[in-house]
């Protein structure tokens, strides 16, 4: 087993275990910390996929900015434990649990079926295929071909910022 395969399995196992921890945790603080671990593992996978730019943005934007936002809210609200589900299964329709189990089994079966039918996709290892790691190419494409989407994104961020301030502010709007 060569190095990149070993690295893939290590990062994949880390990502899956950390994500399972996020869902399995009762304390939101630990959930956020485990999600940062999972994002770090995903950044490692991006490096293996010749996408160092995406790996760095993953660390800076996701682990650095978005998760800090989550941490602030978790600390602000200070609700360390979620209350136990108030008779969760009783509140569902009588057969809700069974229907849900059947649906998830169907979804799982579909996923296995679709992934098994897929032919093996080998990654090209020549220099032309590895040119996707070039930040210059990404920048060129982003500011020419996708310039409109890029500008629209800035409006989206502005709207989200104003919306967040308006929604979370205290008191009645006069």
């Amino acid at each position, binding site marked *: 087993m060569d190095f990149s395969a070993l690295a893939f399995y290590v990062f994949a196992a880390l*990502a899956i275990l950390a994500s399972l921890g996020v869902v399995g945790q009762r304390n939101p603080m630990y959930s956020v910390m485990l999600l940062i671990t999972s994002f770090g593992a995903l950044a490692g996978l991006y490096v293996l996929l010749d996408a160092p730019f995406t790996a760095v*943005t993953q660390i800076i934007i996701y682990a650095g900015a978005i998760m800090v936002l*989550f941490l602030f809210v978790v600390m602000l609200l200070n609700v360390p434990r979620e209350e136990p589900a108030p008779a969760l299964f009783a509140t569902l329709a009588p057969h809700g649990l069974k229907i849900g189990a059947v649906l998830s089994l169907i979804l799982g079966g579909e996923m296995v079926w679709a992934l098994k039918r897929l032919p093996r996709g080998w990654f090209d290892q020549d220099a032309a295929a590895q040119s*996707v790691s070039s930040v210059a190419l990404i920048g060129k*494409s*982003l500011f020419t071909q996708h310039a409109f989407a890029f500008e629209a994104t800035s409006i989206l961020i502005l709207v989200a910022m104003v919306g967040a301030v308006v929604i979370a502010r205290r008191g009645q709007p006069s």
Partner: protein
Amino acid sequence: MITLNHYLILSALLFAIGTAGVFLRRNLITMLLSIEIMLNAVNLTFVAVGRYLGTVDGQIITFFVMTVAAAEAAVGLALVIALFRHRETLSPDAFTALKW
């Protein structure tokens, strides 16, 4: 050798974990975190397929997904704060005013 299929399977597993989190947890913050797991699973698919096809488009759409995720997190967490102020709880079962 690691193929595209490995990445697709990993991404499917992560997406399934995120979906399970949204359905199973009774805490608004953990539900938002599960949505982030799902977004990241999709990002991994985009980057892997982009590498497979030899284009940078996968990384560019990942960039936009991250921006939208940041906007979603900001508005979602503002809503969580407003809801918590209103009801003093984070359980989604407490917010049923719109339920038919």
